[in-house]
């Protein structure tokens, strides 16, 4: 357990990639800054109402924000979600634990492996399945690749929200390398369905580790290029610094997690605090910034991508041999190569498909650090092959709830910037 409090007395870390060390504000200073923004909406004035979303060109997904404007200043925002509601939790109650894995892909379709992973971690906790070491390492690599691809996509879209269109396309260009790796690994570029209860569905293919190593060597160079393009650009600084302040206190109250929380000076990262997969065996740093604004969220994510590259590099170096799926007949869908040769495995296959896995009675809550924040999975089992209740506490749901309070007193031009900086995906919000 690392120190994960809002610790203003924390010693100044060296900013490896930032030129100058910025002064670190206290909570009171941040609050005062926020109050100054809020001040602009004081008083009762005539407003006009515009609806940003669901068809607005830069609202991410089908989020609706009905905004009351006083001139260009946002007075009130009424959020609306649900346009992408698919009843995932109801579906879960009618599918076996195995069958639900592909459905989790569709939650946060930008980082679907992370969703698979979170769900499988929760199930494994409920069942008490021990995941073999190789599977844990593969999961860690895949999860970090997922994080990089999510952040790169986020970066492109976020900077495009500020009007720099080139960024969007060059970020998509570089995301392609990671999607290719995923395609090689599990056969799908977006909806991976790669995690299985007790491990992963396929072993690393030949050449994959080599290619992955090349990509993580190459990506930091591209990240440096992005920073050259945007990091100290005066327009970006003007648009991002001091905008959309959300202090650590606010973050806790609104359950805002992930990069927005870390940009408010809280070193909260479930990869360190409640380690899963192979995160306790690799060495990495939690990216923390202290100004809680749009710019610091950008810095946190840039740092996280670099850390992810280093995590992947370490995992590739220390990749253990051995099985990549647990040998546990009661809980694990057997591997195809055994099903074709082994009668016992075939029986296990039939039992798992027709009857489902054996699950103890009980309830668990397991949260993991997905790219957008903390995703919690709450499973209530009544001992049957299907969950009695499955709830996905996805980060975007709470982020979508919290953003309207960030808009207050900001300008309409910044609404999209702030919304983008939080990184909300509507598949994740509406479930």
């Amino acid at each position: 357990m690392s120190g994960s409090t809002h610790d203003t007395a924390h010693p100044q870390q060296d900013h490896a990639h930032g030129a100058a060390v910025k002064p670190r504000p206290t909570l009171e200073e941040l609050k005062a800054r926020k109050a100054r923004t809020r001040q602009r909406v004081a008083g009762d004035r005539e407003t006009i109402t515009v609806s940003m979303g669901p068809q607005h060109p830069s609202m991410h997904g089908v989020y609706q924000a009905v905004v009351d404007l006083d001139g260009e200043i946002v007075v009130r925002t009424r959020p609306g979600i649900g346009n992408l509601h698919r009843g995932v939790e109801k579906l879960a109650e009618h599918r076996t634990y195995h069958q639900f894995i592909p459905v989790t892909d569709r939650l946060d379709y930008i980082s679907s492996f992370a969703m698979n992973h979170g769900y499988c971690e929760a199930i494994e906790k409920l069942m008490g399945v021990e995941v073999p070491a190789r599977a844990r390492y593969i999961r860690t690599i895949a999860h970090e690749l997922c994080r990089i691809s999510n952040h790169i996509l986020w970066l492109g879209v976020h900077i495009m929200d500020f009007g720099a269109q080139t960024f969007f396309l060059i970020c998509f260009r570089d995301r392609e390398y990671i999607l290719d790796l995923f395609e090689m690994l599990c056969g799908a570029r977006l909806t991976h369905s790669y995690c299985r209860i007790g491990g992963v569905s396929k072993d690393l293919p030949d050449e994959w580790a080599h290619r992955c190593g090349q990509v993580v060597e190459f990506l930091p160079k591209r990240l440096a290029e992005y920073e050259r393009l945007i990091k100290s650009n005066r327009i970006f600084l003007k648009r991002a610094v001091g905008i959309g302040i959300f202090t650590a206190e606010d973050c806790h109250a609104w359950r805002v997690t992930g990069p927005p929380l870390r940009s408010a000076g809280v070193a909260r990262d479930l990869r360190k605090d409640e380690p899963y997969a192979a995160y306790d065996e690799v060495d990495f740093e939690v990216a923390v910034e202290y100004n809680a604004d749009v710019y610091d969220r950008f810095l946190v994510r840039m740092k996280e991508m670099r850390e992810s590259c280093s995590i992947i590099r370490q995992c590739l170096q220390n990749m253990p041999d051995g099985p990549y799926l647990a040998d546990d007949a009661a809980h694990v869908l057997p591997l195809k190569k055994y099903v074709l040769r082994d009668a016992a495995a075939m029986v296990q296959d039939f039992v798992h498909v027709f009857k489902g896995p054996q699950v103890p009675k009980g309830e668990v809550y397991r949260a993991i650090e997905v790219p957008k924040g903390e995703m919690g999975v709450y499973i209530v089992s009544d001992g049957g092959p299907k969950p009695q209740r499955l709830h996905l506490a996805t980060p975007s749901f709470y982020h979508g709830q919290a953003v309207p309070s960030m808009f207050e007193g900001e300008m309409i031009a910044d609404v999209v910037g702030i919304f983008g900086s939080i990184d909300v995906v509507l598949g994740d919000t509406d479930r």
Partner: protein
Amino acid sequence: MDSTTVTVEIPGALKVIFDALEKQFGDRLLGNDFFRGELTFTVAPEDFVEVATFCRDEPSLAFERLDCLVGNHFPGRRAAPFEVTAHLTSVSHTTRLRLKVTLAEGQKMPTAIAVWPSANWDERETWEMYGIEFEGHPNLVRLLTTEDFEGFPLRKDFPLRGTVGGRIRTDLKGKM
């Protein structure tokens, strides 16, 4: 999952929570459970806000955050078929706690918005999915489904397929 009294040994960090809550509320806690390293307390609906506030404000507990607030439906339990579960998280102590409330059909529950603002949408979702009303909620309207949706979709007697609610409103033609 009936609430039983704990017999197994609780590890250190959770023991603090266990003791603090037992000391503060004693008999008003209706039961507790310890499974897979997670501590659960059952409280009465009218005590929920008080217990939650204590959990948030007591420095040795410091549950700053409500991770999620979930409803559940057990048609088998005649007396109190509904359950509301709150998952509390302490960022400073990296601990978690589950508070549980069981409710009869039509029984109301106090809102936790005053304790954690993030409970707002969670409660709206619980209401629209299970029909559990939250007293004092400022805006208890449908969140994920359409406004004309009928029924509470996550109840066990609600069918998986069908066309309840969410139809195209032909009666609004010309008025929009």
